[in-house]
């Protein structure tokens, strides 16, 4: 038995630096945490922000570095770097909007920020995964941390319910994913994504083992992106969880889930796309329709945004259904940037308006906001318009690219369904704007908290992102396209080296 050397490990510092920074930050917070009182936990949040900034710088350094490290376990491509950067920004915004919330609600600060960083670590791992084992470990790290975060409101039974529901259904769906991974391993004899792609040929598509594995993995990922009919947990989990955690679930978890979903299915199971795009067609149509129609009747903004998140997962799945088209992937990545900024902003506004113990703001809390807080009302209007898909905001441009990719794949009916759904969504998004501008503030309303610097900063960043990504789409779209191409190219060119 030869001695183990670092070269035998195929060791590479660069791809693990962003991951290692986040993990180290989480552990540092846990070490410092016991000496910090819960109401002073904002300092730990600042430490988390510094960690995320360092990881962001490392992630930017990995751009343009298309290689596989650790025997194919980690993919250091632009796709991974792209998602790592977006996930880190989304996590930083989440931390910024939690700074005061965590202290006000008396939540355990050290554990909160450590778990947020652990979840971010899992998300980044999913984005950078080179084989199915890493996808699974990333998903589990993220999920376990978020299950716990959802139950962090100690005295609120809704928070307990959210955590329990999310945990039980999540564990169930992870079982599906793991079973699917095992079956795919059985069918192809490998767990590496690139070797799986190489092993797929015309005969592979007839292998019942592979098809069963595909179906199981589809269910597992479908749960994490909250696609209908695997969405039942979403409204309750989103409503009960602490609002910054809800924002994190709606944006971070969805980003990571799509990162894994797209890398596995679009980039590496593309050769058998005929076997699963039809299923995705149906799931996309169902997800959009159920999400939008259920959102119509919601009074609680958190619940409305939960259904809105389901609907947006449906729009993204329209892009996935167009799979062999290379432009669909780039369009989806672009869409996810806009989605992240817009949703984080909307949730930040909800946190500002939330009353203690009320479990999220209702439409009534938005009455007359244009007079009491004109800036906040304007920001919320922007977010709602972007979610609606009004030009020139990020939401519109994203939808435009995704739908045109679907049209080029001749999914005319699916695009018609998507367009009709967008029209339906105007009603519930516009209602928020109408309430803010056309209705008087309720006289009996108790006074609101003063605006907090962390929240204000995250709203401003979200507004800037929503406008910039929409007004100047080209650089973002180019980045998204080259990121997606790197996920495809790696699969095509590096196979020989791996086998």
């Amino acid at each position, binding site marked *: 038995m030869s001695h183990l050397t670092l070269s035998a490990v195929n060791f590479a510092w660069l791809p693990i630096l962003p991951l290692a920074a986040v993990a180290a930050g989480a552990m540092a917070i846990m070490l410092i945490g016991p000496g910090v009182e819960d109401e002073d936990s904002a300092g730990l949040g600042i430490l988390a922000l510094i960690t995320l900034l360092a990881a962001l710088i490392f992630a930017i350094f990995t751009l343009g570095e298309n290689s596989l490290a650790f025997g194919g376990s980690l993919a250091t491509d632009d796709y991974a770097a792209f998602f790592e950067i977006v996930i880190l920004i989304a996590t930083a915004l989440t931390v910024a909007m939690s700074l005061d919330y965590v202290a006000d609600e008396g939540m*355990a600060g050290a554990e909160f920020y450590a778990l947020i960083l652990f979840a971010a670590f899992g998300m980044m791992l999913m984005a950078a995964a080179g084989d199915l084992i890493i996808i699974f470990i990333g998903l589990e790290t993220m999920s376990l941390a978020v299950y716990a975060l959802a139950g962090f409101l100690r005295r609120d039974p809704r928070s307990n319910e959210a955590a329990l529901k999310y945990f039980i259904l999540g564990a169930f769906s992870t079982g599906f994913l793991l079973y699917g991974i095992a079956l795919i391993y059985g069918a192809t004899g490998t767990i590496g994504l690139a070797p799986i792609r190489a092993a797929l040929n015309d005969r592979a598509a007839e292998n019942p083992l592979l098809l069963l594995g595909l179906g199981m993995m589809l269910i597992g990922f479908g749960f994490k992106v909250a696609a209908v009919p695997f969405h039942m947990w979403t409204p309750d989990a989103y409503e009960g969880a602490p609002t910054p955690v809800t924002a994190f679930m709606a944006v971070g978890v969805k980003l990571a889930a799509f990162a894994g979903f797209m890398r596995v299915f679009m980039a590496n199971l593309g050769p058998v796309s005929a076997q699963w795009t039809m299923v995705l067609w149906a799931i996309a149509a169902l997800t959009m329709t159920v999400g939008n129609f259920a959102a119509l009747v919601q009074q609680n903004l958190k619940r409305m945004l939960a259904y809105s998140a389901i609907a947006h997962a449906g729009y993204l799945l329209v892009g996935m259904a167009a799979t062999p088209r290379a432009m669909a992937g780039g369009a989806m990545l672009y869409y996810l940037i806009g989605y992240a900024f817009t949703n984080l902003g909307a949730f930040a506004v909800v946190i500002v308006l939330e009353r203690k113990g009320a479990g999220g703001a209702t439409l009534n809390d938005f009455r007359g906001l244009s007079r009491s807080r004109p800036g906040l009302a304007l920001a919320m209007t922007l977010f709602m318009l972007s979610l609606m898909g009004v030009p020139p905001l990020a939401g519109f441009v994203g939808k435009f690219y995704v739908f045109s990719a679907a049209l080029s794949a001749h999914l005319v009916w699916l695009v018609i369904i998507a367009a009709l759904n967008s029209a339906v969504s105007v009603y519930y998004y516009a209602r928020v704007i109408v309430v803010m501008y056309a209705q008087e503030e309720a006289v009996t309303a108790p006074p609101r908290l003063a605006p907090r610097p962390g929240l204000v900063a995250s709203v401003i960043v979200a507004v800037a992102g929503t406008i910039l990504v929409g007004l100047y789409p080209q650089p973002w779209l180019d980045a998204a396209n080259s990121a997606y191409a790197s996920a495809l190219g790696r699969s095509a060119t590096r196979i020989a080296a791996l086998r």
Partner: protein
Amino acid sequence: MPQWLFAFLAALAIIGALGTILQRNLVHCVLGFALVLIDLGVLYMGLGAVTVGFLQIIVYVGAIMVLFLFVIWLLNIQADTGVRGGASLSLKLVGALAAAALAAELFVVFSHAPKLREVRTIAPAFGSVATLAHVLFSRYLIAFETTSLLLLAAIVGAVALARRLAGQSAEVAAMPSQPGSAARESRREVA
């Protein structure tokens, strides 16, 4: 492995299995089951699969049996409560059917098994701790290390939530109006 040792271990495994299903006391049943698992681990080692043998003992006896005992302890099942009298007829029927299916499956598997003289011996390093360690710390290094972070995240989450429950009960009793103080109280207790 000498023939007599195999016969002894095999007989011990059957005794343990009978002990698992025939005893009244649940804890005794679990101990019988543990005997079977340890015995199987020793059998594996005797056949040259040392790593598998140790993993069998670590995973099954170390983790799964402890889980069984925890469940018995958490549900507070008393030593003298067991299934008294015979099981219902339908339960017996289902059990007999399952046993028959298992026997049929085993018969099919063994009748299709290769003849003993056709079995090839494998390289001695196959499945050894050294080989396993080499794969684990080279090809699967990232998977191995990230799994430890996964467990750490799970522990932090579990501790955060479990501590919350302890704080809640103390707070309901004493200080319903001071949010957060109960948690700090319990943190001091932990510290």
